[in-house]
């Protein structure tokens, strides 16, 4: 799987959304992406890329698009 595929998969698995829904996806915009869902997403991304997010990045990770910026910080090229 490519990195972008792994990234997308984390969202699809955690929230049960389709790939088409990804670009506009943001925290608290769908029932699944509440604080509990957020924890699950973070865990899924950490597992997929074998990284550990900083607290600041966890609480700032507010959308699918914004999240991509953070991945670069963890040396993951999407």
């Amino acid at each position: 799987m490519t990195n972008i595929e792994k990234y997308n998969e984390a969202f699809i698995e955690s929230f049960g959304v389709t790939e088409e829904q990804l670009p506009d996806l943001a925290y608290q915009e769908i029932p699944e992406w509440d604080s509990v869902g957020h924890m699950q997403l973070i865990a899924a991304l950490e597992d997929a890329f074998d990284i550990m997010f900083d607290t600041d990045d966890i609480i700032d990770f507010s959308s699918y698009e914004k999240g991509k910026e953070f991945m670069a910080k963890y040396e993951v090229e999407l």
Partner: protein
Amino acid sequence: MAFWNTLERFGERTALITETGEHITYSALLARADEIAGAAGSRCLAFLMCRNCADAAAGYVGFLRRGIVPVLLAENLDTSMLEGLLESYRPAYFYLPNEKAPDLPGVTAWRGESYTLLHLPYEQDYKLPEELALLLTTSGSTGSPKLVRQSGRNIEANTRSIAEYLGILSEDRAITTLPMQYTYGLSILQSHLSVGAAVILTDKTLMDKEFWALLKEQKATTFGGVPYIYEMLKKLRFDRMNLPSLRYLTQAGGKLPKELAEEFIQTCKRKNMKFIVMYGQTEATARMAYLPWEHAESHAASIGIAIPGGEFWLADPEGAPILEPETTGELVYRGPNVTLGYAENRFDLCKPDENHGELRTGDMAKRDAKGFYYIVGRKKRFLKLFGSRVNLDEVEGLLNRAGIPCACAGVDDRLDVYITDGSLLGQAERFIKEHTAINPNGFQLHVIEEIPRNDSGKVLYSALGARP
């Protein structure tokens, strides 16, 4: 005298702090509270759709002061569930966010910056007994019409007791982490207002940077959390955060796993904060027990001792008191905060006190030689999903009636739904997501060959399989 009637004495002290940093004094809060309740007139039933905002809090306080009985409801209540509740209870008023008001029939009696008070057209063909003060849901996520009847005396007694054992000071500032319709969230609001302290109101969660910014800017001294909030705090590396304003944290709403409890006890010790584990139920207003900080380290798995004014005993299977330590029985509580009973519709509201100050908690517990209690298990068929109570039999009923035969079990924070027809998997998931308010992250569906039953046809829940 009931605390909500003596809030005037706190005058210019800050009562509420909003997300935008606005400080609302007690006099301003009461002016608004009395204006809202005044628009509703005399004693009646009012639904209150909750948010952690000033208008909602003012409405609640106003209703209590005026003797209007609020039914506190979650915002995410499904339309058909809400319609069911409206039909069963026929409240005279509905106090709700402005943008939700157009969805309901009624005349606007008051409108504020965020909330509207709607006068509903129902015929008032039922009575409210004098002692009834508040109604809270028992299993909001399944739209159950079963409400807990709380008296003014219950609220006053429990609030005073909580403020006492927690040592809440008028300088304290609690930041909300829980919704207002949840008895734990409500108790934080009430206990702080009762001593002239302040409450920072927000619907932001621990996963929002705005929550932490607000906590720091407004120098919050405390917040509470159900077990999953502590899981989140651990993930966010709370131990590494620099939050000098925090004085104490509380935990209730389910059993915190022992290792997590021990971890937070140590972290809080290091940060010069208290960590108070507590235990309660809506049926006991809010709280029944707490673990005094000085005993936290040595009794990390305990719920502690009864709150001031309350007492516990353990009942054996015949109902007789258990006198020996280390023997499990049903935990029974006695105190002025034991509520009046339940209601399923508006005619039940005038039922008398059915509990007479004693509550069978439905939890199995034991007591150690020093008199500290430990919860061992649950007798009743419900779970706590991220703090919210979910009645397992009700979920089964809903799915069965929707044509999806199932059996429900699970543990706190994970509801397991077992179905036998694999082709119904998608339908079952959609049903739970669309027709209940069960957190979509809190359940898992499993397809099994057949639902295990005993000879009399009763489901054998224990045979449904251990967690994978």
